[in-house]
């Protein structure tokens, strides 16, 4: 089982540019969440996708958008990059079932540096 995979692992972008990060969930999982982790801080929830729709959203501006594909993989897009967007971006996958108690598995993250 490959677990949650994210690409790329590292990325350097210039202020004002746009970036797309990708995530493949753990086998059997249908829900993908994205988190931003600034240096020395805990991860902050950006949004969650299920059935190709955004189901929950954290306190992030509209510059942050996402997409989920029929195969459950997901993309995180950030427009008009700011220096403050430099962080580790984490993808977590889980599955929705009637039991409800499903664990979120995290990927290794994409380290984004904005210069």
């Amino acid at each position, binding site marked *: 089982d490959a677990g949650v995979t994210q690409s790329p692992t590292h990325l350097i972008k210039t202020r004002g540019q746009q970036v797309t990060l990708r995530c493949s969930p753990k086998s059997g999982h249908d829900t993908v969440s994205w988190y931003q982790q600034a240096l*020395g801080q805990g991860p902050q929830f950006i949004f969650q996708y299920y059935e190709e729709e955004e189901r929950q959203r954290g306190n992030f501006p509209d510059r942050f958008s996402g997409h989920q594909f029929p195969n459950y993989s997901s993309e995180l897009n950030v427009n008009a990059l700011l220096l403050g967007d430099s962080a580790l971006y984490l993808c977590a996958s889980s599955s929705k079932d009637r039991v409800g108690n499903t664990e979120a*598995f*995290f990927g*290794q993250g994409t380290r984004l540096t904005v210069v």
Partner: protein
Amino acid sequence: QKEVEQDPGPLSVPEGAIVSLNCTYSNSAFQYFMWYRQYSRKGPELLMYTYSSGNKEDGRFTAQVDKSSKYISLFIRDSQPSDSATYLCAMSAGWSSASKIIFGSGTRLSIRP
């Protein structure tokens, strides 16, 4: 005020010591309480989760939740150098422990051989 408060440390203890990590929170709606371990340049790994109040033990790890005090703890017995990492407390008010997770800022732990 942050929803979840956690002492950032760093915390340094000798090998074999008992480690106590703690968090406080303000949102009474939290139902799932988790502890994640994060090694440098890695994603968080779930150590334990508890639904509502009570204690849960798994090997050398014990998690405690006191909802009346809005206080959660993680105890590590017989600590090992391999336990050196950042420990994140986390909470969720949603339908499961995987719903919108609110994390503490993390405590850096170092176990001295």
